Structure formats: C-alpha cells, structure tokens
C-alpha cells in the first residue's frame, strides 16, 4: 500500500498544483550586460535642432557644483527641454606641495579635489539656445567652470572603465 501512494496529486484530483508558488512572485526581467547607447540626431535646415549637448560643470567645491547641477536640471524641466541623463564624473584629487627653499626644505601639503557634474540635454532649438546659455551664465556661482559641448562617443567612452584582462585575452586571440 505504501508503494502505491494513492494520495498523489494527479491532474484530475482537486489537489493538483498544490505546491505552486512561482506564479505569485513578481516577474524578473533578465539583466542586460552590455549597454551600447549611441543615439545622435542633428536635423539640419532652417529649423536647427541640436543633438545631444553636454553641460559640464567643474569646481573644487562639492556642494556648490551639486546644487548648481540640480538647478540646471530643474530649469530644463521647467522649460520642457528633454534631459537624457544627469551624471557625475569621478573626482580627481590633486596634492599641492610647496617646496620652500630657505635653508631647510619644507613641504606643506594641500589636498584639492575637483568634482564634475554633467547634464545631458536633447532637442534644443537654435532660437532658444542662446537664451538658455545666457540664463545659465548669469546664474553661475563663483568658482564653477561651465562648459557646453556636443556629446561625442569619446565622452561616452570616458565614463566606462577599461578592462586590461579582456584586452589581453583579445590580443592573444587575434
């Protein structure tokens, strides 16, 4: 009798599918490894529309630069300009060494960090671009460098880290 297992959950029995639970969990989208985003649009003609434009803000003061980036982002939202991305580049640390040569060489150190924030914009019409530039320029805080340039592949690649092992293997293969 024990071998028969008469209480097996068979398809006609009401206990069919009693242990199922995976249909209750939220759907998991499989992770994409590579993201190669290269979208550029320049529609030439009488109605100029710039493609992707990067507004880069660099400064030594972290709070200032972040607040300014937030301000620019919100300004573009209000003016209904589409903002693609708003990201930060890695900070660069500089050590300033003073070599005072008055008999004994003294080395006074100062550590400076340079921060950079980028706001990427798309769909800027050429009649509106100088007005936007003027507004941003006039509200620029002290000590913040402003740079507006078109987005290139090199800019995109500078955010990614190089993988030396992968490159070595590729070099070995080819």
């Amino acid at each position: 009798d024990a071998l028969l297992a008469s209480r097996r959950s068979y398809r006609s029995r009401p206990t069919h599918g009693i242990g199922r639970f995976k249909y209750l969990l939220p759907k998991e989208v499989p992770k994409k490894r590579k993201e190669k985003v290269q979208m550029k649009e320049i529609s030439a003609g009488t109605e100029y529309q710039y493609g992707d434009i990067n507004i880069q803000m660099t400064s030594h003061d972290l709070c200032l630069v972040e607040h300014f980036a937030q301000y620019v982002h919100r300004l573009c939202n209000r003016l209904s300009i589409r903002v693609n991305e708003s990201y930060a580049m890695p900070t660069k640390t500089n050590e300033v060494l003073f070599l005072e040569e008055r008999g004994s060489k003294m080395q006074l150190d100062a550590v400076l960090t340079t921060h950079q924030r980028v706001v990427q914009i798309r769909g800027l019409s050429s009649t509106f671009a100088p007005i936007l530039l003027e507004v941003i320029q006039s509200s620029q805080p002290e000590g913040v460098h402003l740079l507006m340039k078109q987005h290139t592949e090199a800019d995109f690649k500078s955010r990614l880290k190089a993988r030396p092992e992968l490159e070595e293997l590729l070099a070995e293969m080819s």
Partner: protein
Amino acid sequence: SAAARRPWRLFGAMCLLRLPRITQPLEKEEEEVAALMEQIELERSLYSDHEMRKLEEEEQLKKKMESLYDEDEARGKTVIMAQDLEEKWEQKFLRFKAAPRITDADKSNDRTSLNRKLDSNLMLLVKQKIGNQELWLLPQVEWQPGETLRSTAERAMATFLGDHIQAKVLGNAPYGIYKYKFPKPIRTENNVGAKVFFFKAFLQSSDLSQAKLKADYLWVTKKELGDYLQSEYLKKVNRFLLD
C-alpha cells in the same frame, strides 16, 4: 502688378554686453538663511582629522604638565604640532588681500570705463546722428543687400570699436525689433520708416585699449538706460535684457 510693399530701411544694431565679474551681494533674507544653515551644519558636523589631532595633543600636553611622563611613553613625537600649523595658516591668510569690489571707477562714477559695477551687465551706448538729432543708441548700421543681418550687427560693432574685438555673438536670430516711421516731411514713397534689429554679443576680453572709439560712448547698466534712451526705444530694448 508688382508687390507694392511699403519699403522700410533696415538697420542692424548690436547690444554688446560685458558679463559681471563678481556675484551680486546677498539679500537680507538670503544672508539670514545662510547664517542659519551654517549654524545647523556646524552643530551637526563631526570632528575632522585635524581637530582630532589637536585635541589629542592638548590632552598629551596636559598630562605632561600634571605628572612627569617618561619620554619613552610619547610614541612618535611630532615635530610640528597641530596648533603650530593652525597659526601658520592664519598668518598666511592674513597676508592675503582680496581685490576691492568697489573700484575707483565706481567712486568717480566714470561711465566710460569698463571697471565700473563689476556685479552687473554693462552695455555699450553710442551717440549717433539720425536725421537731424543726435541720439544715444545702441550702435547701429544700415543693412546692405546681400549680407545677413548678423554681419550687419558685427559691422556696426566694428565701426565703433575697431576691428579686433573679442566678442561672441549669440546665434543668428535677432533678439528684438524696433520700428518707427519717419516724420512726414522726410517721408517719401520709398522710405516710409526704419526697422532696427537687435543682436546680442558677449564681450570676451576686458581689454579695450586697442579700440579706436570714434564717437561718444558709454557703458551703462540696465537701470541707467532710462537716462539716455528714448521711451519707445527703451521699452523694446528692455524686453530682451536680462538683469
């Protein structure tokens, strides 16, 4: 029949802006908020490395004063104490002198110099002869067929300030337009009136020593424009000026 348009004479004018060099002073509310935020941040913050070091050294000094410790106890005796460093930095700071915000030109109210009012935009005004009157205007020059309006404005700038000016014109589209009809005695069939198109440019370099200024010129802020320009002209010009 041929298109009987009322022909207008076209002029291109350039509004040359000198950008502010320093920020404007804070308003009363802004200053209060800034002081409050600083106090909050100070009370919430933790000690930095330098301050920790200073506290430790003060404790060590106190212990030395009270009971004589052996010299072996003091591990890694620092040659430079944190207090000395602080004093050095303070002395350096006192030696530093910032440039004055209110320059000489401000005090003498010399409107022809560029060093005035470093915290606001300055615009170039030139005295020009139109018809019979001599008026203060933004530099303008008549448009010649075959050239773009932007190049007319650049030519206007060049005639009054010389050829080598480092100014960046913003875009090809004009910022404003002012049109007026000539007084009746001068009006002919071909010349009803004039339209002036305004363009904006930013002055890149603040060095105008090479400029050959021919006519009377002034650098004025937006508020002072009312002293010189006529009311109708002023209304149209004010529309495209940011403060």
